[in-house]
């Protein structure tokens, strides 16, 4: 990283870790299965598991490897959060627009994440199940102004109708890239490399691979 420094930005591969947080049943698993497999409530199972999924993207000529970590949402596992989100570049905090309580849970997560990780993590607050808008219990204005107040971005999605999901992940990736580049510039200016930064974002110089040797997509 130090050697790569601020050199030409083409031909880099970014590796990002994103955690999914939120109460059970708000649609975390559905969102990620829709995004990576384009499936919803599909009993025809192709993947062995839906807890760790990856996606390769190409954003303005730069390659991004996205690893999406599902987390156990049951209340009794709440205390394990820090083990999951340690070293993550982004967090997607999901609530169900028909469930006021689930939005309250998101607020708790935000508080905890900001306390533990400061501003080193990109936060996305996601109101899911907008296809059930008639049963909405969390107002759009309230959610959006809350997100803004904590430096997070707000998105509306429906895993069922495949709405807003591509935008959510693409936008998150762009923000994580910006953050990584800012950190890179900092290092280029001779900032000392702490252990935490070493284990943080991974940016590596990369030659365009001549051989498109398979191994794309999810490794599950």
């Amino acid at each position, binding site marked *: *990283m*130090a*050697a*790569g420094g601020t050199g030409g930005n083409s031909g880099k*591969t970014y*590796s*990002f*870790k994103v955690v999914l947080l939120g109460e*059970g049943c708000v649609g*975390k*698993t559905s969102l990620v*299965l829709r995004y990576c497999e384009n499936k919803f409530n599909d*009993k025809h*199972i192709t*993947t*062995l*598991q*839906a*807890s*760790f999924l*990856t996606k390769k993207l190409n954003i303005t000529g730069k390659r991004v*490897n996205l*690893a999406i*970590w*599902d*987390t*156990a*949402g*049951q209340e*009794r*596992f709440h*205390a*394990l959060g820090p*083990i*999951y989100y340690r*070293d993550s570049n982004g967090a997607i905090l999901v609530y169900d627009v028909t469930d006021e309580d689930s939005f309250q849970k998101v607020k708790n997560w935000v508080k905890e994440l900001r306390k533990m990780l400061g501003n080193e993590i990109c936060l996305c607050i996601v109101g899911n199940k907008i296809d059930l808008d008639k049963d909405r219990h969390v107002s759009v204005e309230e959610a959006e102004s809350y997100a803004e107040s904590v430096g997070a971005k707000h998105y509306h999605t429906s895993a069922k109708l495949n709405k807003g999901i591509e935008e959510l992940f693409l936008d998150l990736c762009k923000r994580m890239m910006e953050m990584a580049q800012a950190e890179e510039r900092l290092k280029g200016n001779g900032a000392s490399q702490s*252990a935490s930064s*070493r*284990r943080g974002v*991974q940016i*590596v*110089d*990369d*030659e365009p*691979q001549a051989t498109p040797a398979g*191994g794309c997509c999810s*490794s*599950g």
Partner: protein
Amino acid sequence: MMSQRRGIHLDQSELLCSKGCGFYGNTAWQGLCSKCWREENQREKQKQIQEDWALAERLQREEEEAYASRHQRAQSQPTITPFSKFEERKTKEKSSKVNTVTKFFTPSTKTPPKKDATNVEVQSSSSPSSSTSRHSSLDSDHATREFIDFLRPLKPGKEIFKQCRAFTEGMVYKRDMSADELSECVQDFYQNLSERLHSQFKGSTDHVESIMDEVEKYMMTHLYKEVFCPETTDDEKKDLTIQKRIRALHWVTIEMLCVPVDEEIPEVSDSVVKAITDVIEMDSKRVPKEKLACITRCSKHIFNAIKVSKKEAASADDFLPTLIYIVLKANPPRLQSNIQYITRFCNPSRLMTGEDGYYFTNLCCAVAFIEKLDGQSLNLSSEEFELYMSGQVSPQWPQATGAFSCSSSSTALSQVHKRLDLLTGLGERQERVMEKARKLESDLIDWTDEVEQKVQSVLESFPAENQSPTAGTASGTASAAASAIDSDNVENELLPPPLQPQVFAG
């Protein structure tokens, strides 16, 4: 042309091996017979292998010299270095009870290659290594050879090897450092090397990753003994604590954890047993990546169990409770030491974003959950929890099962079936334990033989000292004692003269 001649008479000499050994030759083998062809072909390969061995042996020698010199500093009697080293190893292993047993469970400590076995016989008196260190040094040799083979076709291969070797050798002298400092050193080395591979040698990400995997394998095979559960940490204490804790939680059921697997399905219970086996096996691996692979295999078996039970792909909500259940059932040896070791010495990219890293993180979560777990986390009242923990009451026969919200129909019969399944699982595990105990026994016999042989050879090489009276008393016969009294030494001269019997007349 040749094929058209089929059936036409050929001169006998054309068919024979061109080496003149008398066998028939074959055009596919350039006119040689299979035997001569193999010899010819193998000569090149053999040369290569021998060169590698020479290198590996030299490295080994260097390592042992370094080891011996460290001991000479500690022990003032260089003549008994082989034994003191031996002793030290033994006491070191005794001091960690868990260590001794599990060490022998390492499958790789079995069956050394023939080559080395004969070596040891021939020069048994000069070879200072104990049976354990011999095995582990064999592993190291093997790792060195594999590393060299892997690096050979690479342009910077030599350079990589030199750096890794120098670093690994240097680490041996840093054993007084704290575990965190050791980890920091290794992680810095990984990072610097991978950066250089990227920038100087222009490697692609995947290629650099694969090189770094081999680097980790080579280095950690050599460093394992020094840096796994080091004495400077309380890893071992934590191992014992979690082991006891898991044992105390033996009563926790699938229903309490809401584990979505149905062990009455044969394929599911089979996957459960395999998952348990895999997580136990983690302890037998030396390389962090290989330990991770055990966790990943364990996880895949869990996913299979969930998928077969639920008919849908497992989410984290399903996976974590099941993993907790598996860890409780398996009570994996040296669990905390293994987690610490992986955290400290694994390639960071693998832990951070990779799939292995995800499963490893879940294992860390499972352990944290088990450590903190209370009645609430099992849907039990704290009174119930205390009762079960104290062993006064067993939840096997639930009185009122209202608490088990996730249990489907936990009738007595299904409970009995579950017990039976568990028993078969336990039977299988016991069989494996017995198998390993037998291995341990044969290892121990080998070891005693070797010690005997060594004692014999030492006795033979120091005959003069053996004659000393104190050394000879082992037999403890009456004649030996008598001769000791009769022999003239200073002490005897200090004794008063023997009393003469006096005869009185009258």
